[in-house]
């Protein structure tokens, strides 16, 4: 029983420290040349670990550093500075 519980507890602990993942549906993101500002602007945020852009799904996926937060308002500001609009924000 111990053999099952200890790895499970370890896994739970590791997951609780893993960075939050945020998916943002972005309006106007049609050109990769013009969208380079999105990754540049998000990477300037100290809480952001990784940013990926998917033009097919209009999604900007943001992975945060462990235990870090990024407010919706700041996400909207960053995208507005990059020249785009926000359709939806979802968090995992």
């Amino acid at each position, binding site marked *: 029983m111990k053999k099952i519980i200890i790895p499970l507890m370890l896994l739970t602990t590791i997951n609780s420290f893993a960075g939050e993942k945020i998916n943002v549906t972005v*309006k106007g993101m*049609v*050109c*990769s*040349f*013009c969208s380079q*500002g999105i990754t540049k602007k998000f990477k300037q945020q100290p809480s952001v670990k990784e940013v*990926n852009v998917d*033009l097919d799904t209009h999604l900007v996926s943001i992975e945060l550093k462990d235990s870090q937060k990024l407010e919706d308002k700041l996400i909207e500001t960053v995208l507005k500075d990059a*020249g785009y609009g926000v359709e939806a924000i979802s968090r995992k």
Partner: protein
Amino acid sequence: MISKFLLILVIMTVFDGHLAQAHPVAYADSNSIMTWNSKEMSDWMYTHTFTPYYSLSARTTRILTSEGERRFYIPHFNFLAKRWNELDSQANIYLSFGHGGEEVSHSLKDVSLLAVETDWESRKYYVSFRQEALLVYKKRGSNLYMTKLRAGFAPYLAQFNELNSWFILEAEKTNKGIESYTLTPYVRLFYRNVLTEIGVSQNGDAHFNFMIHF
């Protein structure tokens, strides 16, 4: 025939309300270098974008006109007047104005620049329009007017970090050019923040354009 075609395209562009041209205003706190080159024109522009709504450009332009070669040095402001962000497209209207000089006999004569640009683009299609005027102070007959229309398509949909290719047809009309009308097909390639365009106009002149954002 060509003038009729151009007129119809200009009217369509102006009244469609969501068409436009290149991006003189990029993302906040960014820089860009753009250059357009052909036998008749060499144009270099450095732009700093302060906010997503306005930027400042330093520009030097050489134009071969029917009156000989003319050189302009014009700093100008660019404003994003309106943007439409949709899920599958973006459209913009930009306004530019500035004041600088035309090099005449080793001195600079006052010149003002006024321009309007509009564009509409999706991942597959692109249309743009630019009307530019270089107004020579107290010498109305020397004013330069340029109208540029572009339409393009992407033969495949490239992802964010892939090489993008576009085929673009550009129609240009100037009042002082060696050729009044120029039709230039371009191949546009861009990867990340670097963009190049290579084209050959109907009179065989090569065109090379380059842009970088950083």
